[in-house]
């Protein structure tokens, strides 16, 4: 009998680390360099592995798994092409600050740098699109590295962290112990906001005459939707949520003025521009949100900016009161001081401001032709919202359908709206829906997509079959790369260069070929019935191909480079 600590292989250690982190699902695809890891997965039943059809599907699914839950998404792929296939997905997660840990196989340490089969410089290729990455050269460093990876991914401004594991490291053995705590001298994210700055901000908020609350994805990531709702409701101020922040404040409340920006509402953009105090919370003054920064700066207003990342502050817009800290923590303190303070908002000024906003709102900027003989894409989204009671998880791809989903599905809860905001990656919709469905087994998950985007990852319909993921795909099929066509119409003299796809597949047959239910809907009168029927098929994946009006555009629109209030409200403005 020996009393020595048991020696585990690197692969067994990696699997044990994931178990210790409470990981339940790993999205991946095997290959030569990760065979030991897959062998270790085979010998346990705590982690469930989801085998996708293309590595890009794995990384997007892990990303959405994280977006829709409070967990870190985990993805596992092999070296070389396995890695290059996930770069788009890593960049997508990085742009939206999504916590993910990606384990990649690498050729054995002795072969690194020798152009070995399926070798690529993984750490080098991914460096600009990860929060951090590691190459583990010694099995003794593996457990600590994975611990660090999870810690870095989920704390501070979250983001993807990659751990590259050479094949020999995965079969070398050492004793395993997983550190309970970790400290890094080079990484200490700030949590508490500066007390003096918070006090100053509260005074500014309470003495505003035309206040505006502008909340972004940081609210969702920090799980601070409850606090945001409480603050807005206490103050009675108007609130806008960015594309990444939808659901942060309840859209069904009249204080919600819609999304701001390029395809934001008239009232949100005018309030952003004309307010006297702008409270930016977990938002980054993105070019799609504030339009031309010089035009935005023309209007005098004081800006408070709460963000966990100091580099987001005064990056595109100079702010007056920066508060670096965890959004949830800072908001709790702001609420405490607002409630305890003696100053009350100026009720008369606020009433006048709301009167102005209601006047802007009465332009009804999201109106569309409800009598059309063609299916209007907006109508499909509205019906989905109605029939799911506003309570579905909705993923989208990128383009016109994404904007219509954001405008017409009114999200009341955080983590329900899953889309690629920063990078704008076409193809995410279906793998996103898979990731969400894995995280929320019994929830209704709808993927609003277009006939172009869906074809970028359509192979994942096969994964949906294997794992019986009852995703509902709503394909808003207008035959065009719609957003490209819209820009070409407006800015390129209607020269529709390569924005029309001939020879689309028969999506009904395609869905059926993958073992799913396919439907084609051609008339507005059939929209509601089809969605109802699809929702009734609780355990089936249903592909609804809606043939929509090919000429419909997303309104309102602020053209790129224009000021936020130079809005086109419809084709009559062209």
């Amino acid at each position, binding site marked *: 009998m020996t009393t020595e600590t048991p020696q585990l292989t690197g692969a067994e250690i990696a699997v044990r680390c994931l178990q210790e982190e409470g990981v339940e699902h790993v999205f991946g695809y095997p290959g030569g360099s990760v065979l030991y890891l897959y062998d270790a997965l085979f010998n346990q039943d705590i982690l469930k592995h989801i085998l996708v059809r293309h590595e890009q599907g794995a990384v997007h699914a892990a990303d959405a798994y994280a977006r829709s839950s409070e967990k870190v998404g985990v993805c596992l792929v092999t070296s070389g092409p396995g890695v290059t296939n996930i770069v788009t997905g890593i960049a997508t997660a990085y742009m939206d600050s999504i916590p993910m840990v990606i384990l990649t196989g690498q050729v054995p340490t002795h072969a690194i740098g020798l152009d070995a089969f399926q070798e690529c410089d993984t750490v*080098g290729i991914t460096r600009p699109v990860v929060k951090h990455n590691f190459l583990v050269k010694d099995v003794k460093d593996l457990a600590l590295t994975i611990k660090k990876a999870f810690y870095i991914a989920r704390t501070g401004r979250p983001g993807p962290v990659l751990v590259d594991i050479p094949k020999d490291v995965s079969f070398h053995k050492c004793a395993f112990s997983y550190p309970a705590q970790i400290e890094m001298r080079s990484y200490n994210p700030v949590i508490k906001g500066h007390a003096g700055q918070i006090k100053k901000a509260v005074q500014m908020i309470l003495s505003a005459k035309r206040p505006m609350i502008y909340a972004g994805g940081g609210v969702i990531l920090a799980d601070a939707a409850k606090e945001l709702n409480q603050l807005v409701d206490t103050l009675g101020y108007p609130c806008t949520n960015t594309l990444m922040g939808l659901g942060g404040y309840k859209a069904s409340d009249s204080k919600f003025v819609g999304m701001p920006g390029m395809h934001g509402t008239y009232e949100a953009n005018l309030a952003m521009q004309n307010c006297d105090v702008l409270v930016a919370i977990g938002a980054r003054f993105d070019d799609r949100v504030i339009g031309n920064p010089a035009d935005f700066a023309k209007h005098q207003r004081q800006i408070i900016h709460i963000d966990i990342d100091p580099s987001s502050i005064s990056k595109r817009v100079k702010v007056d009161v920066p508060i670096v800290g965890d959004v949830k923590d800072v908001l709790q303190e702001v609420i405490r001081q607002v409630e305890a303070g003696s100053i009350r908002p100026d009720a008369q000024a606020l009433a006048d401001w709301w009167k102005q906003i209601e006047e802007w709102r009465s332009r009804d900027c999201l109106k569309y032709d409800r009598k059309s003989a063609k299916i209007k894409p907006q109508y499909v989204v509205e019906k989905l919202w109605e029939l799911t009671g506003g309570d579905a998880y909705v993923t989208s791809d990128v383009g016109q359908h994404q904007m219509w989903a954001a405008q017409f599905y009114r999200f009341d809860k955080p983590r329900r709206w899953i889309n690629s905001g920063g990078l704008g990656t076409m193809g995410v919709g279906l793998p996103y829906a898979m990731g969400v469905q894995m995280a929320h087994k019994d929830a209704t998950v709808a993927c609003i997509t277009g006939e172009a985007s869906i074809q970028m990852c359509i192979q994942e319909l096969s994964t949906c079959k294997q794992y019986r993921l009852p995703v509902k795909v709503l394909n808003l099929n207008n035959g065009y790369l719609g957003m490209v066509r819209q820009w070409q119409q407006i800015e390129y003299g209607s020269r529709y260069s390569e924005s029309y796809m001939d020879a689309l597949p028969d999506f009904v047959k395609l869905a059926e070929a993958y073992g799913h239910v396919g439907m084609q809907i051609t008339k507005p009168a059939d929209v509601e019935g089809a969605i109802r029927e699809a929702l009734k098929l609780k355990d089936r994946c249903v592909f609804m191909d809606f043939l929509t009006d090919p000429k419909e555009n997303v309104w309102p629109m602020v053209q790129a480079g224009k000021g936020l209030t130079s809005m086109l409200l419809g084709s009559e403005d062209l």
Partner: protein
Amino acid sequence: MKRHIISILIENEAGALSRVAGLFSARGYNIETLTVAPTEDPSLSRMTIVSVGSDDVIEQITKHLNRLIDVVKVVDLSEGAHIERELMLVKVRATGKEREEMKRMAEIFRGRIIDVTDKTYTIELTGDVAKLDAFIEAIDRALILETVRTGASGIGRGERVLKV
């Protein structure tokens, strides 16, 4: 646009340099010079970067450097009193009457001749950037065979210390 000298303490890990260099190229920031070597604590490297930019850009640079996971500390030395030095090695043609003149110039600039052949001198010179530039200006350009400069290293004056 102002010249800034930024000091960084960074974990002495493989790839640390490329993270810093990659940040500058990805965000379009300018690097005039960059020097790096381990400190007395071999787990840490000290880097000095000279960059030219507006105040806003330099602020973004220091924020983004701080955001790198391996970076332990960042300080913009130009915000306070500091000393900077750079090492230059110059190989010059030294024949005939120019041989004596070159030796004299090296002495004036407090340089040292560290390698001699019958046709050349190699002169070692340290100082701030302006002094090294001045030496180049002072000697006959046609005699310069080769120059190599390290880029600036900087340190705060007095009690100002950059340490973990």
